[in-house]
């Protein structure tokens, strides 16, 4: 027993949903100033547990003690009054509102005072999370949105901070910076619950770890004394597969991007400047970079979602395709896995079979204008089986799948169409380790089959694991692709911060008019990026 009571103590927390037991007698102690990891695969019950602590979900059974005294956390407002802050991963930002308005909504009225814009800038500068308070959230990428979430939490002076995979959007240097911040916060007495599947990070940051599997605690340990492999074993109940790959044997250039320049179509978007890149048959080329540096725009231009005027700027097998739309490029053998699996990669309310039809209809699924539903169902069922997708069947609605399972399905759907070129954006974002390993192996297998693969990711580990060559995107410009063996993590980090861009070549950023809270526009437009 330590001298002071745990800041938070859970005992016997149980939550049963109609089809699944999300938490089964979970116990958890978080000491003051402790950085405590909660590890587990998607669906292990981490999110439910965090929602219970944050007052969003009521447990069916169990007790919660806060600093020694029993409490009922009936609402998030109550949780915030206790001093619990949470960095959400999904569904907590308002897209049509500005950053400042989003943050103001989560603060008490007295904390959301008139100097909020300045405080946001202070906090974001202090913690290395560049943010413009007046920007509308709907113009921001996933990564930038997460910065808003983090800043929002830090402004609440929390005594327990719940962080749900906060590092997936940061450069290695920024991760170090965030860790330094979190350690400072912890030294000041703030407890931190750190949810992640990045085992190395947990070993570097956390003093204690609680591992969940299928709703139950399968172990607690000091992650600094464990290896990544032993943590993974506790988490998935088995060994993590290692990717198998053969030596590179790249063939002819399949996808060529030639000085692609594209002005932003959105006042907050990033313009692309003379991007050149070649992806050859039988190799995986990675594009690293912090989100919001033009990935979204590049993906739109490559997939055909946004055709470009200069048809020769994008070439497939030597053929100019820049002016073709997405369907035209797919007909030529391009497959695309978008970043947002719900809404872009799949239609949430449609079944998996219907979602197959959306991109795979060229696989003789339509005859004389009629859909051959048995062929569609067969394709869906084979995809489910081949990629180990956990789903109720081909008829299950896309939204009923967990993020990792749906991602496996979307990737599988594209791969099984035997493309000549596959482009994948954030293929394992928010996906648990087991599913991520599976997806990476599938991409490598595709490479072995002689397909040209382009992967855009913010996870450097992933890129180092699967890529043959690596380029970095920063401020709408792409660095030269280098052999993976010649790339060091430090160097890539420098590139991600824009070190390869000539001074004076900064892109123009625009700002919205001062928001509804009477905020002044930022003093300097260029001073935000580090």
């Amino acid at each position: 027993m330590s001298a002071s009571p745990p800041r938070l103590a859970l005992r016997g927390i149980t939550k049963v949903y109609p089809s699944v037991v999300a938490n089964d007698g979970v116990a958890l102690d978080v000491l003051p100033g402790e950085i405590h990891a909660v590890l587990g695969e998607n669906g292990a019950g981490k999110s439910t547990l965090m929602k219970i602590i944050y007052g969003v979900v009521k447990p069916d059974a169990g007790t919660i003690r806060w600093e020694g005294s029993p409490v009922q956390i009936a609402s998030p407002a109550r949780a915030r009054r206790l001093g619990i802050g949470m960095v959400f991963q999904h569904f907590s930002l308002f897209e049509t509102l500005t950053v400042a308005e989003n943050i103001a909504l989560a603060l008490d009225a007295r904390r959301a005072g008139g100097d909020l814009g300045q405080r946001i800038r202070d906090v974001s500068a202090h913690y290395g999370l560049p943010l413009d308070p007046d920007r509308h959230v709907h113009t921001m990428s996933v990564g930038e949105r997460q910065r808003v979430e983090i800043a929002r939490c830090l402004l609440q002076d929390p005594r327990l901070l719940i962080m749900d995979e906060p590092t997936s959007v940061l450069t290695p240097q920024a991760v170090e910076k965030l860790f330094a911040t979190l350690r400072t916060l912890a030294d000041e007495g703030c407890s931190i619950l750190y949810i992640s599947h990045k085992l190395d990070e947990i070993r570097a940051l956390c003093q204690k770890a609680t591992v969940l599997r299928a709703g139950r605690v399968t172990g607690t340990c000091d992650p600094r004394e464990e290896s990544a492999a032993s943590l993974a074993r506790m988490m998935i109940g088995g060994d993590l597969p290692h990717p198998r790959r053969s030596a590179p044997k790249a063939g002819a250039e399949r996808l060529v991007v030639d000085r692609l320049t594209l002005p932003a179509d959105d006042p907050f978007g990033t313009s692309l400047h003379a991007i050149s890149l070649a992806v050859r048959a039988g190799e995986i080329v990675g594009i690293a970079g912090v989100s919001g540096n033009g990935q979204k725009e590049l993906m739109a231009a490559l997939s055909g979602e946004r055709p470009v005027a200069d048809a020769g700027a994008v070439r497939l097998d030597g053929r100019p395709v820049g002016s073709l739309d997405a369907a035209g490029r797919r007909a030529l053998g391009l497959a695309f896995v978008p970043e947002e699996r719900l809404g872009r990669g799949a239609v949430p309310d449609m079944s998996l079979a219907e979602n197959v039809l959306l991109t795979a209809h060229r696989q003789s699924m339509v005859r004389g204008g009629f859909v051959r539903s048995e062929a569609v169902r067969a394709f869906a069922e084979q995809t489910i089986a081949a990629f180990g997708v956990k789903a109720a069947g081909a008829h299950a609605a896309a939204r009923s799948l967990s993020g990792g399972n749906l991602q496996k399905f979307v990737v599988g759907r594209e791969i099984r169409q035997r493309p000549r070129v596959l482009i994948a954006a954030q293929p394992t974002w928010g996906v648990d380790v087991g599913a991520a390993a599976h997806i990476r192996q599938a991409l490598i297998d595709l490479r072995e089959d002689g397909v040209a693969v382009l992967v855009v990711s913010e996870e450097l580990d992933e890129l180092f694991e699967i890529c043959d060559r690596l380029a970095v995107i920063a401020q709408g410009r792409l660095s030269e692709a280098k052999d993976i063996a010649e790339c060091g993590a430090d160097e890539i980090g420098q590139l991600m911060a824009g070190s390869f861009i000539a001074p004076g070549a900064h892109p123009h950023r625009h700002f919205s008019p001062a928001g509804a809270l009477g905020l002044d526009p930022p003093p300097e437009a260029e001073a935000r990026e580090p």
Partner: protein
Amino acid sequence: MDQLAQLVALTLAAGTPLVYAALGELVTEKSGVLNLGVEGMMLVGAVAAFAVAATTQNPWLGVLAGMAAGAALSAVFAVLALTLLSNQVATGLALSLFGIGLSAFVGLEYVAVVIEGIPPVAISGLSDLTLVGTLLFAHNPLVYLSLALFALVQWFLYRTRAGLVLRAVGESPQSAHAIGYPVLAIRYLAVLFGGACAGLAGAYLAVAYTPLWVEGMTAGRGWIALALVVFATWKPWRVLAGAYLFGGVTLAQFQAQALGLDVPSQFLSMLPYLATIAVLAIISRDAATIRLNAPASLGKPFHAAA
């Protein structure tokens, strides 16, 4: 000069019921609730206002009664659509039909009754002194009130924290709930406000604009108010402009009928509706504006997960 002042006065007078009804509906929709019962709530407000004004000889009591009646009818909608999660579109349509029938039934004995309506303000000296005086100081008090309501709604939605919360609820009730705002209570208040405004719009028609009671006297203004909110891309000032555009064209078609133009009167009666929708549709064809201002959760039921 007098004519110009009169033109302005008549335009404002004709547009005012739309200002009330559409601003109320705008607030309701900004919270993410689509209440299609505006026409019904206006009629019920109108008949309640007229009946109370006729009984008490006090048109202002009538106005209060109209607001209360509109709010009461909207409360029925709120219970059905928000608490019992019925389909908002179907419930709203039913509410309109119910309001039309109920008002006709209640209003039977008031059809030929004459009441003393609310007269325009007349500040001696100021109102008839100059053109400016006539323009500024000779309208119905309820016209001024509607302008005040516009300012209030604009200020509330975009300058206050409560307004920000309301917009947030309309944007994403799940997120608002996750942060800890009482989504249901906020939506109830927004629906009641919309009902009271629709009732006030009806009351204005019955005790100030005409003043008399005729079955179905709103003549589809409730529906045009609904369209106005959408085509105004949920912006209060565009609602105001659209309402006065409607008022102006209404006036113009009266003039045209009086002049005996060789155009069927039915066609002329269509004009205000056509012109308002056409102009607003052209103004609001920018997809980005719509996306930024339309409440994303509009019409979708919200049920907080246990």
